[in-house]
């Protein structure tokens, strides 16, 4: 029998990465239903370390589902979370190691004073959806703990720690 090779890891940042998160969210339908209606469209912007074009995606959520992953250009969003690749990587590394973001690497903390990640918006009403749906958004990103992915330089997030559990620190 011919050897079957494992599929290549997803790449972060990429549309495929967020599509995989979308699929993971579908598999967790009960959990997201418990968190409640989740209606927002927001953007993520990952700036390149080498000054190149940022990677930008719009994520569209409706009811309990992620219903769209698309290019950010031309999409009307409630807010955009943006920051350097290093900040996103640190967040994703922590999630991968711990199974979920700890306090220091939660979206709330990272965007709190705008030092690591910043939130851009035109209307404070749109910005407030980051607060209204905070736990759903965080748990969406926490699903990246389940993904097999690599960064542009080929490196991978750290393996899950043996004691991996949902903990704040």
């Amino acid at each position, binding site marked *: 029998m011919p050897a079957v090779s494992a599929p290549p890891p997803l790449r972060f940042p990429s549309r495929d990465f967020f599509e995989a998160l979308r699929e993971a969210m579908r598999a967790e339908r009960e959990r997201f239903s418990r*968190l*409640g*209606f989740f*209606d927002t469209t927001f953007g993520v912007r990952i700036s390149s370390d080498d000054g190149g074009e940022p990677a930008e995606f719009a994520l569209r959520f409706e*009811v*309990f*589902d992620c219903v769209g992953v698309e290019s950010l250009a031309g999409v009307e969003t409630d807010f955009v979370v943006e920051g350097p690749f290093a900040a996103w990587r640190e967040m994703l590394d922590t999630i991968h190691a711990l199974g979920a973001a700890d*306090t220091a690497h*939660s979206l*709330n*903390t990272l965007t*709190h*004073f705008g030092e690591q990640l910043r939130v851009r918006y035109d*209307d*404070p*009403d749109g*910005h*407030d*959806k980051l*607060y*209204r*749906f*905070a*736990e759903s958004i*965080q748990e969406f990103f926490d699903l990246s703990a389940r993904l097999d992915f690599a960064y542009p330089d080929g490196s991978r997030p750290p393996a899950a720690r043996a004691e991996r559990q*949902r*903990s*704040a*620190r």
Partner: protein
Amino acid sequence: MAYYAEKNFFEDQQLIELVTNILSGNLTLEWYTAEGGRVRARPSDLRRGLTYEDCNLGPYGYDAIPEFVRNRYSMAARGSVLVSKLPDLGYTINRRSDVWSDNVVALYEEAKARRWAPAVDVPWAELTAGDSVREAAMAQLCTFLEEVALVAMEMPSKWVFSINQEFLELKSFLCAQMIDEARHVEAWRKRALTSGHGLGRASVSAEQALKELLSAETYPEASLGTNLLLGSFVLAMCRAIAALAETRADRLLATLAMQDVARSVAYGVGHMRYHLAHQPGKAVALAEYLDRTEHVVLGIAGSPEFLEPVVILAAGSVDRDRLAAGSRFARRWYTSAVEEYFERAAAVGLPRRERSRLPRLDV
């Protein structure tokens, strides 16, 4: 002041005969001939179920509520056929733009869908007796937040009966706000009581400031003061607690509370937008209300019963150097909260950046 029905129904022979006839199979069927609008509501999205938006149909819908409600002062269901002698409930808030917000129906559905139960949704067992100073600070902070939540619970309760029931979705949202705040009273209280320290000290400046907000003379002022002004700062308080949490339990508690408060803020913003779009002349009076009321922020957010616990939680200890770092966090927290409040106020047409006397801090 008691109200008495026009008859004692025990002594109403006509009614007793009618009941006897009906129970003998002789129906009047007057209700069946009532000519209300014929509609059939259906869920537009099965995931959401049948929402109030799906029921926004013809005379039953909220779109049909006029700016001035002139002829419906009883508890008759909106869109039902009115008959004579319906009692007047004495509603004093009968103008749509005094209460309405375009997002209130969605916020009501959201409030129900995103409900949580502090007893079981916060992993209390993960809270262990930790650093004593830190836990004492958390207990004090929760004592303070319970005071705030009590007032945030009472504000809608004070107004809901005065608002005409034609605005039933809005009144239901006010009830959801009360449930949200009852949940916060419960959550903050339970968190204080798990600390090993019990409840802390009441805050005289915060309580006087909260009472001033509660005593607003009109509903638009009350909504502006509690939902938009106070809500902006309470939202920021929850955000800070989540960012300073040492346990998943504290982070989740603060995050879930923040989500609830953010809905009230969203209603406050939407309400003011709607109100001023329909009554632009009120902008002057509301700006003056903020001129004389914004000082309450200092009484609340500046109270030692709030500020010192925040400094200690951010510092992680009472070590002098660490306290300096904690104070820096508190300054940045306040600055950020003021900034977001200014943004929301400007968005509704009440620019405060140049006009407000809220202190600006060096960060």
